């Protein structure tokens, strides 16, 4: 007795649910993400990512340089980040420009935000973040908040 196409699709669906189910923690995290909705912040879009955009990626990889460069922009405001990956941890350094100084925090979805000190010329460094969806929130002196678009680091 051969299966119809519909029966085969149903069988494959049951196989997938056993062999490679959606992790329940992912479903609950995706539902809970609604709490991270940020109505006040203006989004700084990811405009460059060395992982996919830079022609020198292959050269840098060959040199063993694992840092990844991300650039976010909102109007004249630019946030440059360099992500260094270690097993289970991410260090992110960078520079804020085009905005007046204010409080900066780094956030990985599922973990509490971390306050990040900002030094002279807008340089910052945060060490030991867990891997995952990441953003920076930058409260400008004028009261406006910028948030970088969520990016997996």
């Amino acid at each position, binding site marked *: 007795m051969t299966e119809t196409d519909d029966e085969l*699709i149903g069988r494959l669906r049951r196989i997938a649910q*056993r062999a490679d189910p959606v992790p329940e923690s992912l479903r609950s*995290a995706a539902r809970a993400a609604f709490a991270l909705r940020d109505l006040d912040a203006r989004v700084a879009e990811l405009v460059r990512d060395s992982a996919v955009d830079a022609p020198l990626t292959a050269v840098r990889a060959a040199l063993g340089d694992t840092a990844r460069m991300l650039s976010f922009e909102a109007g004249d405001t630019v946030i440059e980040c360099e992500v260094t990956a270690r097993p289970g941890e991410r260090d992110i350094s960078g520079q804020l420009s085009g905005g007046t100084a204010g409080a900066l925090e780094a956030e990985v979805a599922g973990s509490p935000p971390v306050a990040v000190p900002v030094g002279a010329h807008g340089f910052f460094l945060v060490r030991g973040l867990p891997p995952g969806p990441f953003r920076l929130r930058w409260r400008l002196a004028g009261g406006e908040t910028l948030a970088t678009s969520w990016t997996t680091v």
Partner: protein
Amino acid sequence: MVDDVSNSELVAAAAAGDEKAWAALVDRYTSLLWNLTRRYRLDQADAADVVQTTWLRLLENLGKIADPERLAGWLATTASRECLRVAKRGDVPRAGEDFYSIPDDGPAPGDRLLDDELDAALWRALAMLGEPCERLIRLLISDPPPSYAEASQILNMKVGSIGPTRQRCLSRLRTLAGLDGSEP
């Protein structure tokens, strides 16, 4: 029934702060995003991060989705781009993972969990199908599955081609799994 509510209504309600509408969108598309993401052979934690990032991107764009009836395509495109970023970022593995054990064209994730030989053969065959077959079949076995209109947006294929392509892909899958008695 939430199932009957259109994406336009759910997106509008979620944008207005309705958490249940958001949960309904998550329930409608998380399986689809997971299945699509698994094609990129990322490890399970990276795949989960990509899907979560995709949801967070939707969250930051809730008020700007131009055509909510094309939401499945928007989500799939966002997730695919993020998969490529994660696959190409060239970083070190997570703690406890062996860099050299990252599978290439090896067995699909979960292969060892299937004791039924035929089920295991089908699961392996799915990973060998090639495109557009693998993506189409992974889409169609999502729970809930997308409509053919949504599948056509995601695969950039005419709606009228989905049925015939499905038939051709399943026939190839049967051959690869040794189900039709012929050599693959």
